[in-house]
């Protein structure tokens, strides 16, 4: 049985680098085709080459206009620029302004004009000037650009502006703005600082304004280690909705990344909406921690029974292999012995004896009839090399527990094991235990 087909994973965005190139060429990103496999570093080089090609010829012209700004009084320069210098040209000039002059001029022109200039700026060439600008006007420009949904253009500047300016931009962003822009960002240290320092009211706004499906989108766009403050603010009852959306899309790897940053309550909520096939897919991807132990321990019996009922023996075997045996106790108590025996049979057929025998470490949790079935499978399989190797690896108590059921084996199985011991095919531990048997 294979997992139910899932809804397609939404594609968040075109690569930021291709988006930058499209912007430079005044094209829609969908028109820049065929570059998907090109490494980001080469796309950056290509972007800079195109930028140089487009604007390089007029560099001296722009430099002269920038120099002109020094000879015209600030108030007049601001008025003249806004009235007669189109944004595309102003952008090129801005990149060559003396930073002090830029600080002066930014307060003398309208936010609308600044926003137009920002859209035409080259994020790399403008960096020395932009970094000297105060955060307040940048926040105002960001608000204007968010209002116009110029997310791709804004994302280009994440490496250009200072941390303070980034914070100012995040402050004015609505949760839906962030949802749109975050997937486009090329992450850097400044963003880490900004996300870590987001004010409580902003974090709460994000966590409570977005729907579970939107939060799921945001979660998949962010590195979990960066989601910490936002995750903590998400109401537990919303987590089930987020998990459901992600399970439906089959975002198992993306979900598994969050195991280390969510609370036990959130894990509970997520596990409770998981189907057996979801668990089958996600469990092998989990990096185990104490929270997961608690969740497994407290899984409702009905859910474990549903797992046992819905998964076929092959899938159960996959799940067993994906789980650490020491954590299987709560599940083993509920799974019917016949199912465990079937799983054991599957593992033997796959020659995964070592995987199977390691479960004797939780031997106390395994009913006698299951141990009987396990021994029977070992005898039936006659894969003595694997059995010997696995048996020697388990602890003495588990070895003793396993052989304590030897007498209950079918005579034919007992005979096979004894024959293997006589032929020297069992390891020393098993042979020693067998010697004590009448």
């Amino acid at each position, binding site marked *: 049985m294979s997992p139910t087909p899932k809804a397609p994973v939404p594609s968040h965005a075109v690569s930021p680098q291709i988006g930058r190139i499209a912007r*430079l*060429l*005044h*094209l829609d990103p969908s*028109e*820049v*085709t*065929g*570059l998907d*496999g*090109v*490494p980001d*570093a*080469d796309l950056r*080089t*290509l972007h800079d*080459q*195109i930028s*140089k*090609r*487009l*604007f*390089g*010829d*007029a560099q*001296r*012209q722009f430099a*002269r*206009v920038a*120099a*002109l700004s020094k*000879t*015209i009084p600030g108030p*007049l320069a601001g008025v*003249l620029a806004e*009235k*007669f*210098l*189109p944004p*595309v*040209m102003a952008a090129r000039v801005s990149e060559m302004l003396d930073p002090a002059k830029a600080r002066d001029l930014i307060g003398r022109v309208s936010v609308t004009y600044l926003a137009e200039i920002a859209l035409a700026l080259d994020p790399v060439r403008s960096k020395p000037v932009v970094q000297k600008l105060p955060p307040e006007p940048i926040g105002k420009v960001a608000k204007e650009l968010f209002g116009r949904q110029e997310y791709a253009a804004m994302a280009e500047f994440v490496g250009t502006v200072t941390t303070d300016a980034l914070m100012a931009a995040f402050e004015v962003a609505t949760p839906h703005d962030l949802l749109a822009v975050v997937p486009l960002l090329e992450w850097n240290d400044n963003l880490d600082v900004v996300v870590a320092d987001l004010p409580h009211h902003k974090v709460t706004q994000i966590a409570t304004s977005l729907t579970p499906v939107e939060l799921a989108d945001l979660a998949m766009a962010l590195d979990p280690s960066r989601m910490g403050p936002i995750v903590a603010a998400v109401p537990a009852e919303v987590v089930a909705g987020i998990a459901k959306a992600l399970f439906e899309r089959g975002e198992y790897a993306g979900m598994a990344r969050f195991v280390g940053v969510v609370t036990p309550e959130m894990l509970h909520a997520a596990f409770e909406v998981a189907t057996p096939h979801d668990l089958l897919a996600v469990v092998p991807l989990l990096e185990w921690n104490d929270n997961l132990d608690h969740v497994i321990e407290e899984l409702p019996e009905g859910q474990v029974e549903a797992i046992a009922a819905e998964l076929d023996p092959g899938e159960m075997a996959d799940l067993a292999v994906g789980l650490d045996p020491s954590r299987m106790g709560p599940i083993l108590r509920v799974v019917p012995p016949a199912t465990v025996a079937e799983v054991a049979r599957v593992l033997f057929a796959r020659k995964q004896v070592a995987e199977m025998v390691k479960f004797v470490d939780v031997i106390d949790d395994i009913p006698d009839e299951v141990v009987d079935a396990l021994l029977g499978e070992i005898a039936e399989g006659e894969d003595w090399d694997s059995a010997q190797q696995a048996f020697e690896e388990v602890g003495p108590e588990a070895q003793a527990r396993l052989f304590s059921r030897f007498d209950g084996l079918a005579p034919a199985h007992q005979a096979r094991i004894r024959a293997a011991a006589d032929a020297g095919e069992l390891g020393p531990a098993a042979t020693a235990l067998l010697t004590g048997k009448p």
Partner: protein
Amino acid sequence: MTAKDELTKALGAAPPEAVATLPAATLTRLAEQIDAAKARQDADLEKSVKVAIDGVPFAVRGIVRKALLG
């Protein structure tokens, strides 16, 4: 002229290796897109210069003209 040559001409420099080895159709299309953007950019700048020179007050028109046209 090969597609790679077309792109090199449009860029004014040799493209990065990973770009240069893309299919010819991709390179040709990219070269055409760059040429079109360059033509539009030049036209925009020319228009901007004219607007600026014609529009600024007479008193500063001289220095603006000198700045823009050299």
